[in-house]
């Protein structure tokens, strides 16, 4: 399997006046194409920070990061924007939908920045929304949806451009068990379709289904478990 993400000695520090808060203290990770990776760790351990860097939203203080064998620190800002647009889909704990836009428009947003025509956008957005079971809610505002539905809109937005990598930062953190399980089901489905999935979770059940579990404590990787595949369809 091809190496998709390679991170070496990754450091991230936040300067707060005179004190420096370390968030990542030298992280090494390799993630292959098509893997399902779970990131676990206590609050404040640097999971979100790592996700932001992997998602090209943030830049590390030091260290090496290559994406598809290309060094990210050498990339121009416009290239990074294009990567966020086409290669990476982000799903957050708090959904992060635009409240003034309806469901379909929210999902069309990456396509707009991707330069697709209006008709194409509409077609693609409707298609992914039907895949996450929201065909009936196209014109609803996010505030008119349940938490689970909102997260499904967010997933639809993340996958509408068919990105190679999906980054999900505690996607079930704000959901009850049932809707959380629905959402996790969608991620399994996406994984089965060949997407690389990196998910921050506290749920050991999710971790069990992952190809790889990365445990972070205080900005350092404690251990990486390569789990036995219990699911026959995963990891083809």
């Amino acid at each position, binding site marked *: 399997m091809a190496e998709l993400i390679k991170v070496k000695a990754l450091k991230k520090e936040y300067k707060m006046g005179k004190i420096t808060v370390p968030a990542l203290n030298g992280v090494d990770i390799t993630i292959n194409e098509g893997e399902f990776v779970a990131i676990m760790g206590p609050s404040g351990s640097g999971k979100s920070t790592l996700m*932001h860097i992997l*998602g090209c*939203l*943030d830049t590390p203080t030091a260290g090496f990061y290559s994406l598809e064998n290309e060094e990210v620190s050498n990339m121009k*800002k*416009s290239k990074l*924007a*294009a990567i*966020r*647009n*086409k290669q990476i889909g*982000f799903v*957050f704990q708090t959904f*992060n*939908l*635009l409240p*003034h836009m309806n469901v379909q428009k929210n999902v069309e*947003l*990456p396509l*707009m*920045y*991707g*330069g697709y025509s209006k008709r194409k956008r509409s077609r693609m957005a409707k298609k992914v929304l039907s895949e996450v079971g929201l065909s009936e809610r196209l014109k609803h505002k996010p505030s008119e949806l349940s938490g689970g539905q909102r997260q499904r809109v967010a997933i639809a*937005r993340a996958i509408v*451009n068919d990105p190679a990598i999906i980054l999900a930062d505690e996607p079930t953190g704000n959901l009850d068990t049932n809707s959380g399980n629905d959402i996790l089901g969608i991620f399994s489905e996406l994984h089965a379709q060949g997407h690389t999935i990196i998910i921050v979770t506290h749920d050991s059940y999710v971790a069990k289904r992952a190809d790889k579990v990365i445990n972070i404590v205080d900005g350092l990787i404690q251990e990486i478990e390569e789990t036995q595949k219990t699911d026959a369809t995963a990891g083809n």
Partner: protein
Amino acid sequence: MAISLKESIIVGFSDFWSRKVRSLVTIMGIVLGTMSIIVVLALMKGINAQTLAWMMERGGLSKISVYENWNYDNPLNLRDYFTWRELELIRSLVPEAKYFNPQEREWVKFAYEGKEYRSAVYGVLPDFKYIEEWDADQGRFISEFDVSQSNDVVVIGTEIKNELFGSKDPIGEFITVHIRRLQVIGVMKHRFMKNSGPVGNENGLAYMNRRAFVPLSTMIHKGTGEDNIGSFVVKAQDAESAPALREKLESIILNLRQGKPVFRVESAQEEAEQMAKNQRTFQVIFFVISIISLLVGGIVIANIMLATIQERTREIGIRITVGARRIDIFIQFLVQTIVVTIIGGILGIIVGLSLLDLVSKFIDIKLIAGPEMIIIALAVSAGIGLLSGLIPAVIASKMDPVKALRYE
């Protein structure tokens, strides 16, 4: 690639629309500013038209007047009037002048059947009626024959007629002016122009209706008995040739008076230009005030945009996450501000145009609208949008997406 301008405008409009009340409050300053620009520009245009109309009433822009220069103290005691012969010489030197009318004024008492009226009588030539574009509309005006014969005839203004004759037909009647009896041969057309100034008669031209006219020769030979004529008026072929003719006349007259400025030679064209210049000062002040009020409106908008961006921090983070480039965010907010100010500009234009008639009634000057005002108002409001949107847009585009996403 990425977001197009059209897309930004659509996003700008939908942002405007989804926050209707706030958007309307935001643009009030721009609405008022463009409204006042429209009113001021229409006022300027109205005043200009009125000035021109006034100049036209007084004989048009091709008129050149020569009269004593009151500012010159004349130490050599040069003659500060013209003789009949001098005027004949001057006339022969400017054959290109279309009309030529020397005139002398005298304050007199008109008497008719026990009634008296004090006013001015003017000795003139027949060209007077062409130069002033003012003729008798009852009876006739002074003819060449009247001049050559120094006839004892008079043409009176409507006010003299009303005072002395009331409703009686004055033509053919004799009135006494000092000790001479003059036969009324005509009544001048009544002159009227609405006076918009704060003082004076309601009729801005009332003074003209109080005048009477006699042949210049009659006045000189029989009236005052003195061969001195204080002023004369010339009409050029057209307004364009008036300044050149004015210069020529000036040098002729300077030659007649040892090069000293005993007389003033003034062309209506230049006078109009001078008036326009004087008015321009006020116009510039008005305009600057409107621009300042627009700038204040712009500052308000900039302020609200900054608050909006603060509020929409998360949205900016989300947009960057899904692939918006800095320039996309920049354009989005800049265009949005411009959309807001242009909507404000359009509303201001509509309100301003609909106010014109009302203002006209109020200040008694007809305000005149024109397409150039709409263009100016739109351009200015878009410019204000550009200026006030720039800083907020830069701030929005420089936002750190991670901080923006963590923003509560």
